[in-house]
Each structure stands twice: as structure tokens, then as C-alpha cells.
């Protein structure tokens, strides 16, 4: 799996978490746990930074997880 694919999954999950937070306005337990998920998704963001170097040319290989 490449970093790019991971980042796409994470973005999708963030969208879901934000929707859940919105849906759970009247339910603190669901809302809070969804906020916790969002916090961890932001950490996942941190763990999967864009690493393609602009001038060196990028390839899927450079962005791959060993």
C-alpha cells in the first residue's frame, strides 16, 4: 500500500468522522468518541506526510511504505 493510498483513506475517514460529529449533536458519548477518532485521524495525517520532492521527480516507489 502506498502513502498516497493511505492518505486517501484517511481523508475519507475524516469526512466520516466529521459527519458523525454533526449527526451526534444530541448524544455526547457518540459525539465525544467521534471527536477522539478525529484527533487520531489528525495524528494519522501527521504520520503520512507528503514526501514527494518537487524537483527530484516523484514516483510511486518514493512514496511507498517499505
Amino acid at each position, binding site marked *: 500500500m502506498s502513502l498516497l493510498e493511505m492518505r486517501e483513506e484517511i481523508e475519507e475517514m475524516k469526512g466520516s468522522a466529521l459527519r458523525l460529529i454533526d449527526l451526534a449533536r444530541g448524544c455526547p458519548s457518540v459525539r465525544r468518541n467521534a471527536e477522539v477518532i478525529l*484527533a487520531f485521524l489528525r495524528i494519522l495525517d501527521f504520520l503520512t506526510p507528503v514526501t514527494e520532492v518537487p524537483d527530484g521527480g516523484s514516483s510511486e516507489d518514493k512514496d511507498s511504505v517499505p
Partner: protein
Amino acid sequence: MSQEFWSPHLETLSRVQLEMVELARFRELLAFARSHCALYREKLSDIDPRSINSREDLKAIPLTTKEDLRAFQEIGPHPYGGILAVDMAKVTTFRQTSGTTGRPVYVPETYESWQWRVEVWCHILYMAGFRERHRVFLPFGYNVYVAFWEAHYAAEKLGCEVVPGGALDTRGRIQKIQEVKANAMMCTPTYGLHMAEEAKAMGVDPKELGLERILCAGEPMPEATRKMLEGAYGCEVFDHIGGTEVCGWAGMCSEKKGLHVVEPFFLVEILDPNDPLREVSVGETGLAVVTPLGRESFSAIRFNTNDLVVKGPESCSCGRTSQKILEVVGRADDLRKIRGVLFSFKSMEELLRAEFPEIGEYEIVVSRPGAMDHVVLRAEPVAELGKGKAAELAQSLSTRIKVKTNLTFQVDIVPRGTSPDIR
């Protein structure tokens, strides 16, 4: 995927990629801090984040000192004042500095930023070989100081079983390690040595406690002390460096030759203390200036940790590509002039641990009864000394101290149990 790295893709990025990621995050942090934090609204008012495109450009940004934090803490809503960068309602974790150098700094974390700190610690622990199979004993007080709190949560996150050892005295902790069969521990180096002595006094060989690894934190640990702990417990001992304001920021890998900065979680510069515009070269000693890149609650931008470190290379036989620290020399404010001579307390620790294994706990007292500094080393032997041996040891110590530091110390060998209790 390699089993050696917690984040294989991050821990083996090229230097070009690391710098690119760190500078991008630094710019984002700058922009955020300027708009959300009173301290940086003032300090960075002239800085355009878009102007920071290389490490050279960082020089334009003033360092943040502990005094800055103290001053801005007083301005604005209690307790964090102008250093807080988020709504107070989002703060979930309070910690503070020890206050040994002045008023304590209160450090706020949101749930997210605290989990970010825990994630950093996952890297530190994994690098030191902590795994799911470890039952980790933490003999610390679980109080307002950050100490091993992050390590506790990170060990849980790694899948270790964590045994909290607060509210027990040293003997109680030793008994608990035996009772639960803990196979890993985290402690300060001083406490680790003290615990080993206490175990022997209980008739327990520390090697038989069954610990496989120990991670140390909280104070500089000279290599001689680390080896002494390894010898005492018969296990591997790892170091790390961190601070309440910035989190743990470098850890030790299985090669045990210095520390790896946990990149790209931090942008770390090691600056010439006499010329802070210059980054030192490999092998040179400099001031560690640390920017945690993933925290919103409290932005510490180019924070001067006041830790003196020896810059290491950007490679290691473990395969990590992060910047290394070869040695933690000590606190810049721990260096002091005694009778005109620059003295490092850490050098005393190194001397005693390397050359005087018969010495256990000790204290150094500097006073000025007259015009000149007077220094007394009070040292406890680890075992009762025979007749005349105390005087012999004191003389030997005094001679070696003079050679090592060019200072004359009064050396008193005092009975065991005289030194202040250590926790």
C-alpha cells in the same frame, strides 16, 4: 514491512524529504501561532511564514525562552495566559515544569496534542525495543510533572502491560516488580541506581528481578551511568531526552550510540551558544533548540531547551536517517563558574560512576563563606568501609576531582542514609 521501526516510512525518509516535510509543517505552525497565540502574535509580528523555505531562513525567527513563557503566562486568562493557542474548553491535560529555575510554566494540552505527544513516545519506546510482551513497571509519582505520563500511555498504545508504581516506597516497588514479574521498567538514572542499592540491602540481586530493558528519563545520563545500570540489572538500558515544554524529542536505538531525534515530529537545531545564528557541525557541542511540529495547544517555536548536546551524524547502522545527538552534555544553566573555572555537574557524575563504583549517592554543596567559592562533595559508600578506608577514599576522590576539574573539593565520606532521600 520492517519490524524494527514504529514508522518505517518516516524513520527512513531521506534528509531532503525530512527537511521538506519539517519546513512545511513549520510554516503551518508559524501561521497558526501568529493568529492564535498572544506570545507569537507579538514575537512573530514581522515574520511572514511564506518566507521560511530553508533552515537558513529560520534564523530570522527569534528563539522562545522559558522567560518568554513565564512572562506571557501572566498575561491573560489563568493559568496559561498568553501562551495558550486554543480555547480553554479544549484543554484536557495540565502539566507543569518543575520550577527549579524559577516560576513553573504551566503546559496545556488538548486531547489531540496530548495524543500527539504519546505518539512521539511510541517511537521512543519502540526504538528502545519495548514490545507487546513487556510488562512495564513505572516507579514514579504520577503527579503534576510530565515525567513518565506520556511513556505510560505510549506503552499502553504499543500493547505493553503497564503497572503503575506510584504511592509505593522503593522497597514496595521492588516487591511489586517481583510479585507481578515485570520485565521492563522506566525510571530516572539516579532512581534506578538507588533502587538497585535498595534491592541489595533487601537481599535481592537486581539481576534476578528479571528486567529485560529499562528506559531512563528525567536527567542527563552519562554513558558510565548507563553501563552501571546495565551491569546492576543485567539488562539493556536506554536513554532519551525531552522537556515538559516540548515533549520527549530524541530516543536511543539498539545501537546505543547517542540519540535519534524523532523526525519529522520535531524541527531540531543545535546552535552555537556563543553565536546562536550558527548551527554547529557534527561533533560540536551546542544548544538544543526544538520546535514540536504537531501541537496546537501551545506552540513552542524555536524553543531554547537550554540543553547542551553534541551534534551527531544523520545516519546510523540501525537504518534510521534522523539527526543524531551523540551526547547530552547537560543543562547550560548547570554549568557554573566555581572560582573562575567552568564546572559541569554532569562531569562529576561521569567521574564517580566510571571510577568510583564504591560510591552510591552523593551531593555537591557550593557555598561562599568568604570571598571564594567553597565546594563540598558528600558521598555515601554503597557498603560499609573498613577502618581507615573512608579517609583513603576521600583522598583518592579529591585527587581525581582536582585532575578532572582543576578544582579543589572538600570530600566527606558520610555514613549510608545521610543523603537526602531520592524518589
